[in-house]
């Protein structure tokens, strides 16, 4: 049966058909839907883990125990999981283990555009890269076979355009591979120096064997057409290249580490001009040039951004690319109407505080008109950075600095930051924006929501108790919509010479879907002061001649704008 599937759903289907028993992940665009789709297969145990490191460790445990396991994350998630990953490369597996990583060239929804292929090289482990949904499913299954055949973790790399594109997939039955017996072997699974010395040899031999075998793997494929131009590529770029230059010969890697050098040499010898087209880093190109093979790559193709059919035609054939009108007003993503983060950020702006922020919807507090964020680095960084500001500039500055972090991000990697600030006698003020969900990635539950991936009720991590256990004595919980309470709490906690935590709580409006009566602006009472516009709510509009209005179809009745108006011009009961 053929079905149209998202690349991520196809990876999930591959895991299902491969007989996977355990699946773990922390949500991250563009990888999230893999685990959401896996959770629909009852044969597979699925979980959202608190972070990628834990997710990988759970998967390693399942693999050592003998089950096939899959762990999925976005590119920056691998940084978090890198510690177990580097040693997993040494231990190898029992049941097959596949780590799926989704890169985000062009940064549709990421803080950097690092290239995960470097991790495969650094770990000396194989990495496969599909080019569409069909291959996504096939390569996932193949990855499990390779993992067990070569006794190695296998990385499966996707990019946004593979993960978030849909194409046809041939569905097959699940292969119940069962669970392999676990045999205690500390020379393989307990990586102390004496054992690790032996295992490192295994790693080096394994990758050499894989490099030889790569030359005969069917997923590395040469298609000879005209030999005037030869193109080396992988993933979705192979589709772009074939469409842009239908007459060119193409060597497409299905396995992007290690590379099939004999195949490359043969291909390079047969084509007149050799191009390497790869998004992000010059990883193939560097290895190919190191063999003394002439090729053109990053001389013409950028390290930054996504490629496309038009870009390849432009770079190789000189065809112009039609350009967008850049004089139009831009439309950046914004906090939704009724977003509980908006009111908190308005207060932070009003108090002119330095704000070390974090990764999530609230990163949007950096945009106009709130413009209330100073820094965004990585998951959990807000708390460590706030403590760093405190230690660098002392109490005067720490009275004007707060860390802002969401509930899911706090559980992911905020807790250790709190432990540090308390232990080292800091005076940070930390605001946890608890909207009871992992918002930006599409509303996944997390330990603080008390629900599992399959929406079962479970222990709800009590954020207040957690921070108190870390040694924070001053903890306040406020209604995020109540700007007076939020302001009062922030002012009080900033004055305290100790680490303090404010939990600004209100569920995400997209989650509650509660329909409240919208507000409207009474133009007889409106003094045209423009205060309501300062919160940057997309539901509030102003015409050129300063007539203010609220769009009833967008307003969710949160009442934050009501608190901005000093003239009682905002009233309940807006109509379309």
């Amino acid at each position: 049966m053929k079905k149209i599937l998202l690349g991520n759903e196809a990876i999930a289907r591959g895991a299902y058909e491969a007989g996977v028993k355990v699946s773990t992940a922390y949500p991250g665009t563009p990888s999230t839907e893999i685990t959401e789709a896996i959770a629909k297969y009852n044969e597979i145990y699925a979980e959202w883990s608190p972070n990628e490191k834990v997710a990988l460790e759970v998967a390693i445990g399942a693999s050592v125990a003998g089950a096939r396991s899959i762990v999925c994350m976005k590119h920056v998630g691998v940084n978090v999981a890198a510690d177990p990953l580097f040693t997993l490369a040494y231990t190898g597996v029992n049941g097959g283990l596949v780590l799926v990583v989704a890169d985000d060239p062009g940064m549709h929804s990421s803080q950097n555009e690092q290239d995960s292929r470097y991790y495969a090289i650094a770990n000396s482990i194989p990495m496969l890269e599909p080019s569409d949904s069909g291959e996504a499913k096939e390569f996932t299954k193949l990855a499990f076979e390779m993992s067990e055949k070569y006794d190695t973790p296998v990385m499966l790399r996707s990019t946004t355009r593979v993960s978030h594109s849909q194409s046809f997939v041939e569905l097959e039955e699940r292969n119940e591979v069962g669970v392999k017996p676990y045999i205690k072997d500390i020379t393989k699974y307990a990586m102390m120096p004496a054992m690790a010395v032996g295992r490192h040899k295994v790693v080096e031999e394994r990758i050499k064997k894989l490099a030889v075998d790569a030359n005969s793997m069917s997923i590395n494929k040469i298609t000879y057409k005209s030999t005037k131009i030869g193109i080396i590529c992988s993933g979705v770029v192979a589709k772009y290249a074939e469409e842009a230059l239908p007459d060119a010969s193409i060597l497409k890697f299905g396995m992007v580490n290690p590379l099939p050098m004999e195949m490359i040499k043969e291909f390079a010898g047969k084509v007149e001009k050799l191009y390497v087209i790869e998004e992000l880093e010059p990883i193939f190109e560097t290895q190919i040039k190191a063999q003394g093979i002439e090729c053109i790559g990053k001389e013409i193709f950028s390290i930054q951004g996504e490629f496309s059919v038009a870009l390849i035609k432009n770079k190789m054939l000189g065809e112009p690319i039609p350009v967008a009108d850049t004089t139009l007003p831009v439309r950046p993503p914004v906090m939704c109407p009724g977003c509980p983060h908006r009111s908190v950020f308005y207060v932070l702006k009003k108090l002119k505080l330095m704000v070390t922020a974090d990764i999530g919807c609230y990163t949007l507090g950096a945009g106009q008109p709130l413009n209330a964020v100073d820094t965004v680095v990585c998951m959990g960084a807000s708390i460590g950075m706030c403590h760093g500001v405190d230690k660098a500039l002392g109490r005067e500055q720490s009275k004007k600095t707060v860390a802002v972090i969401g509930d899911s991000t706090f559980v992911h990697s905020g807790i250790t930051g709190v432990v540090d600030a308390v232990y080292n006698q800091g005076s940070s003020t930390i605001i946890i924006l608890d909207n009871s969900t992992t918002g930006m990635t599409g509303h996944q539950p997390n330990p603080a929501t008390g629900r599992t991936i399959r929406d079962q009720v479970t222990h709800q991590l009590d954020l207040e108790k957690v921070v108190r256990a870390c040694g924070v004595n001053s903890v306040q919980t406020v209604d995020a919509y109540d700007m007076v309470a939020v302001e009062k709490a922030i002012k009080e906690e900033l004055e305290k010479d100790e680490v303090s935590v404010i939990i600004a709580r209100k569920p995400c409006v997209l989650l509650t879907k509660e329909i409240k009566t919208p507000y409207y602006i009474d133009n007889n009472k409106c003094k045209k002061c423009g205060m309501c516009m300062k919160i940057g709510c997309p539901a509030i509009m102003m015409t050129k001649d300063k007539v203010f209005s609220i769009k009833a179809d967008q307003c969710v009745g949160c009442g934050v704008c009501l608190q901005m108006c000093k003239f009682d011009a905002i009233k309940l009961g807006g109509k379309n």
Partner: protein
Amino acid sequence: MANILIVGVGGQGTLLASRVLGNYAVLTGQDCKLSEVHGMSQRGGSVVTHVRVGNNILSPIVAVGDADIIIAFEKLEALRWRHYLKKDGMMVVNEQEIMPMPVITGAMEYPNDIKQKLQEVCKNTLFINAAELAHECGNVKVANVIMLGALAKNLGFKYEDIIEAVKMTVPARFLDINLMAIEKGFNAK
């Protein structure tokens, strides 16, 4: 081969529209690739979904200058993405205006000559008041399906096929209103 671009503002339902088109391809036995936007860009930002229906499709993204039709759920977004259109391509544009943040904050003005500019670059531009038609259906949220109806008509899709595709995509409890919406869009002038 039809290269379709669905553009709009995050939250307007471009994803659902593209999924109906995916099912349309399944029904009519054609190859199809869709490319969507998830994550941060979704939050009220400018969004684009690529749909390609035909034989042996390679790239999941429509090349710039290669779209047969652009269906814009919002007027300014039509202007923003118009460079994707083929020379003799067509545009179906919802007359709705959604103010972007620079306009809300007063830093910029919402262009008042969008219709004129669009007609300059594309004579074959159809404007639809999808919000009003959606209101007639009883829910402003079905504007996306109204636009889809108009798209289906202008690409020469059979009415029965697109109806079937909607049935495959939309949950049963929302089916009636969506079928009403597709009909209104299909017959919109």
